[in-house]
């Protein structure tokens, strides 16, 4: 028996406590580095970054958009589990929620560093401008984060020791009981903030690269973002699950569960990427020409952005994983599944990159020049900070919380 085995979920085996602590320490070092960088940004100001007046939105906003897209697994899996009633998914929903929780808390942390006057950050709520996409993002994001907390709390309460407290036990039980309501609210909120994030650059009619025509009151990137998050978020959930399995060297979720989620993701991704192709085509041949640009302008005359980014995003990280996932054989082959989920996760990040950083890069005034940007170490550190924090939270949660309901069954303790 290990030092902390009383806290482990019932009937599972975990690594030794010292080994666990070594892991935690390693991650803590990265975490402390990130916290140091964050403190520098808070106390010395954003001059610590390599952002400038051309790159007011940079690495951090990309990281925000990316983690929220990747965290999209939580809302979409929740939506499938509670509203579409895909019951199998209950075996992975916990982990999806945890990943979502990590992603969303990270996003809020990054936003807290990113704004110039963090102590006035609450103005976005108090003095909200309801026409701003960012307001919509802030509201839905924080509300959905509350929902994620609500979804994560019962999981914490299921800890073997906490569960012994009757109040906690009942609270957890009751929350589970009405989880469908929370999940539905979450899905509603999530749709909106994923969409608003898509609107962030879509409404910028001064920035032809980001600007998209409107559907209702939103530019259509609004819908594309929700769609892509629903498609790629679950892929990321599967990716992290498989990574966890690889690291813990045991199967945690039955293949049929993964397969179901992968299949749904595949079809989402496939339909999304077609929509994205149409969007790109319309943008390239209708939207930007009307502003006086050739689409190729945005992919030439600079040291970084070329058409490769389109190929990467749409073909390599779009069609390929989509096809791999909707094809039964490749979906059920471990290696191609790995490739597909990795590509899909990269794809959504590339998309967010393009719609944040590439929007800032090309000159809009004809006499201006391309602006490229390389983040400072402080920016990199604060962006890695949430990764370290996420790894740590997963380590702790996995060790002490019954995240994978099938783990006991799949890994019976023999001795």
């Amino acid at each position, binding site marked *: 028996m290990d*030092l902390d085995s009383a806290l482990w979920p019932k009937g599972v085996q975990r690594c030794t406590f010292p080994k666990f602590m070594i892991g935690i320490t390693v991650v803590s070092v990265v975490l402390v580095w990130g916290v140091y960088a964050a403190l520098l940004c808070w106390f010395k100001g954003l001059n610590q970054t390599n952002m400038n007046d051309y790159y007011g939105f940079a690495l951090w906003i990309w990281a925000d958009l990316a983690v929220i897209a990747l965290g999209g697994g939580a809302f979409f899996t929740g939506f499938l589990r509670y509203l579409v009633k895909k019951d199998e998914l209950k075996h992975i929903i916990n982990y999806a929620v945890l990943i979502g929780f990590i992603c969303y808390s990270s996003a809020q942390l990054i936003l807290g560093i990113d704004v110039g006057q963090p102590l006035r950050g609450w103005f976005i709520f108090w003095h909200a401008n309801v026409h701003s996409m960012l307001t919509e993002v802030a509201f839905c994001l924080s509300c959905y984060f509350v929902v994620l907390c609500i979804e994560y709390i019962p999981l914490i309460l299921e800890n073997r*020791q906490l569960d012994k*407290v009757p109040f906690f036990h009942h609270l957890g039980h009751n929350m589970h009981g009405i989880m469908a309501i929370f999940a539905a609210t979450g899905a509603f909120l999530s749709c909106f903030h994923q969409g608003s994030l898509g609107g962030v650059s879509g409404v910028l009619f001064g920035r032809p690269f980001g600007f998209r025509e409107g559907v209702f009151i939103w530019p259509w990137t609004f819908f594309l973002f929700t769609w892509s998050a629903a498609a790629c978020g679950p892929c990321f959930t599967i990716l992290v699950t498989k990574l966890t399995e690889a690291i813990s060297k045991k199967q945690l979720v039955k293949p049929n569960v993964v397969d179901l989620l992968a299949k749904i993701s595949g079809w989402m991704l496939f339909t999304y990427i077609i929509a994205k192709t149409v969007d790109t085509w319309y943008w390239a041949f209708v939207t930007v020409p009307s502003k006086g640009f050739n689409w190729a302008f945005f992919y030439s005359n600079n040291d970084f952005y070329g058409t490769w980014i389109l190929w990467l995003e749409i073909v390599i990280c779009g069609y390929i994983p989509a096809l791999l996932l909707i094809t039964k054989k490749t979906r059920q082959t471990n290696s191609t599944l790995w490739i597909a989920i990795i590509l899909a996760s990269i794809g959504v990040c590339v998309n967010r990159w393009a719609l944040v950083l590439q929007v800032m890069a090309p000159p809009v005034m004809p006499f201006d020049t391309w602006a490229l940007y390389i983040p400072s170490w402080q920016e990199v550190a604060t962006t890695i900070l949430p990764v370290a924090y996420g790894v740590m939270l997963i380590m702790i949660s996995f060790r002490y919380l019954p995240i994978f309901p099938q783990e006991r069954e799949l890994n019976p303790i023999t001795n």
Partner: protein
Amino acid sequence: MSASDDKLQEGATDSAINAVSRNHEKNEQADNAGGIVILFFIIGLAASMIVGWIVFPKLLYSQKDQPISFSHAIHNLEVEDGCESCHFFREDGTFSGVPKLEQCIDCHEEVQGESADEAYFVEEYVNKGREVPWLIYSRQPDCVFFSHAAHVKKGEMECNTCHGPIEDSDNLKPYQENRLTGVSRDIWGYNIGGFKKNIWDRMKMDDCAECHKKSLGVKDACFVCHK
């Protein structure tokens, strides 16, 4: 988590369970216990009410007396043009605010009357040519642009609409300054709850907005009042 923590948790859980079971066992004590709980609740409530309503404002504001005593009432009788005799508009339309020594000297070159305060004023300030370091009750933070001309000249408002019946006061109240923000208490108002009876009780943005909305029927652009 260490083993000792582990034990603690076990212990705590046990006692919680114990407490629950104790309650079940000693049902007759329940009323009594409930009474105590309510009592403590009320004590907490009352104490925090006292802190919040009485102690807090005393801590929040520092208090200073004006450098010399001054009666608006007396001056108001002596001057011809009411407030604008001393608080006048400059030729460029800006408002002079609190008078400079220069204006005071017009009448106070020599000691007037027999009051000791007057003698002190003449000796300390007039004779030495030092400006009186008046503490200004109605000074807004730097972000505020306020045009007296727009209100008094264009809007034909009376001074006391916003400043209250100060012309009748015999002395100057102590100046209170918010320790956190450095802003005069008159801006938030003397009621710590922020309630006002008269227009002049508060000078917060909402108070400006209220009147603007009423009299102009529109919410102005931000920089009409901000700089």
